[in-house]
């Protein structure tokens, strides 16, 4: 055996690579994405009516800011409202469905069928009922965001360990006790986890509806800009949607972390 000791750098003696690359990476990658986009558009001389450069989109954002701001707020409003309704109704129905096997069995095919319907096909019906505008957008957001919440809450309830249930029932626990003490707390990580998916879907729903049947909102604005061949404005709308989507997603992720930190930590402990 060689006598040579492999030099291990003590932790404090590490070179000053204090830069947290993991935290920086999202920003760097996003900037790089736009830079490459810009470079490609310029290098190949792609016309702005096909693919506008980020600088052109930025220009449109500034030029049309008052309108963009108004439509963005409208979309954020309809999405949040539809999402909020979906949270309340999804939680309630999820608890109901998870409550009993019979309800679960009865509602399951209905819900799957309902979820399989493309929501874009529902918008005309909503328009017949409510006219064009805010209400169909809110309802479409609601309809599309609702399902993952129901399924997740019901899953959390339905997967209670039978042994836990046995322990409690042998103490004389009623169904309600088991739901309150085990089912609901246990389904919370599923519920909060589903919010991230649901809020993203809610944007899809509201924008679909705005594109077809509205006179405000980002979907409407993009459809209008498209008919005028104002492609940079269409892209500016997309950027705003992405920004709102990321913001809401991040908010939901934060809430999830705050509310159900135990689930992450207990999983880490088990792996």
């Amino acid at each position, binding site marked *: 055996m060689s006598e040579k000791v492999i030099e291990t750098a003590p932790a404090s003696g590490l070179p000053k690579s204090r830069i947290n690359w993991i935290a920086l990476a999202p920003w760097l990658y996003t900037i790089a994405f736009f830079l490459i986009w810009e470079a490609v558009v310029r290098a190949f001389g792609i016309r702005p009516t096909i693919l506008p450069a980020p600088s052109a989109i930025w220009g449109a954002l500034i030029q049309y800011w008052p309108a963009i701001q108004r439509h963005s707020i409208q979309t954020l409003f309809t999405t949040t409202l539809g999402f909020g309704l979906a949270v309340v109704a999804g939680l309630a129905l999820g608890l109901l469905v998870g409550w009993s096997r019979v309800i679960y069995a009865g509602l399951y095919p209905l819900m799957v069928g309902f979820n399989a319907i493309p929501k874009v096909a529902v918008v005309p019906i909503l328009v017949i009922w409510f006219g064009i505008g805010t209400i169909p957008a809110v309802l479409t957001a609601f309809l599309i965001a609702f399902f993952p919440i129901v399924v997740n809450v019901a899953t959390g309830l339905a997967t209670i*360990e039978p*042994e*836990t249930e*046995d*322990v*409690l*029932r*042998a*103490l*004389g*626990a009623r169904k309600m*006790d088991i739901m309150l*003490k*085990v089912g609901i*707390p*246990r389904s919370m990580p599923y519920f909060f986890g589903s919010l991230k998916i649901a809020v993203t879907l809610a944007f899809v729903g509201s924008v679909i509806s705005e594109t077809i049947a509205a006179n405000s909102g980002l979907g409407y604005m993009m459809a209008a800009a498209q008919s005028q061949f104002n492609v940079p404005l269409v892209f500016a709308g997309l950027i705003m949607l992405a920004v709102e989507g990321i913001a809401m997603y991040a908010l939901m992720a934060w809430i999830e972390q705050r509310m*159900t930190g*135990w*689930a992450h*930590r*207990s999983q880490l*402990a*088990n792996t």
Partner: protein
Amino acid sequence: MHVPGFVVSKYRGEMSDPFVQIDRVDLRYGGAGGVLAVSDLTLSVNKGEFAAVVGPSGCGKSTLMRLVTGLHLPQSGAVTVGGNRVNKPVSIAGMAFQNPTMLPWRTTLDNILLPLEIVDKHRHRLRKHRAEYVAKAEKLLATVGLKGFGDRFPWQLSGGMQQRANLCRALIHEPELLMLDEPFGALDAFTREELWCVIRDLHAVSGVTIILVTHDLREAIFLADRVFVMSSRPGRVLNEHRIEFPRPRELDLIYDPQFSRKVQELHSEIADARQAA
């Protein structure tokens, strides 16, 4: 050793005083064409007695636990606990399983207090007398060697510690009947032997009636007053062995030749039961 909350009972149960009685019970899962889990199952356990049930896996040991606690009702025959015919969950039993089933969002202490939020006698007193119950839970934690771990979360405890906490939870409401379904199956040998002693001492001071299901014959013989051997499915009692080793039993009993002989005797009986299947 003193276990809190238990009146130390000199009364160790006359042997003619059956507390749990299973009388010619059949239980079939899943309707007429389903699995016949136990058939013509008869056994009785006296008050304060420590009974162990051994048998091949899948023979209906866990089913027996669910019958006694009223989680399943037999299709024929009768189950009686404490003189009452069991026709709904009994609500005087503490249970512990191999899987500790601690709730990960509750601290260990809150997990142990959980039965008190359920059992009728305590649930209405809990809020007002919380300090008293917490003190009791902490004493129980101390007796199983978990002093000061009450504010940890279950996932911060090792498997053995979780199982200790699980025992505390099964005992906090002073059950008359403690049902243990392979509680130490997932633990290493040393931890398991430590917990044998914990259970032995709890039983010694509390006078609680215990039914222990296990596949570990040494565990059954070390702990129990009587060991029931079950047949393969459909399960029934093939034989019962009275374990006469005097109490208190020390751990080195398991190296005693007589002890080994008893283990072998049971072992061959179960091997025969498996053959017969």
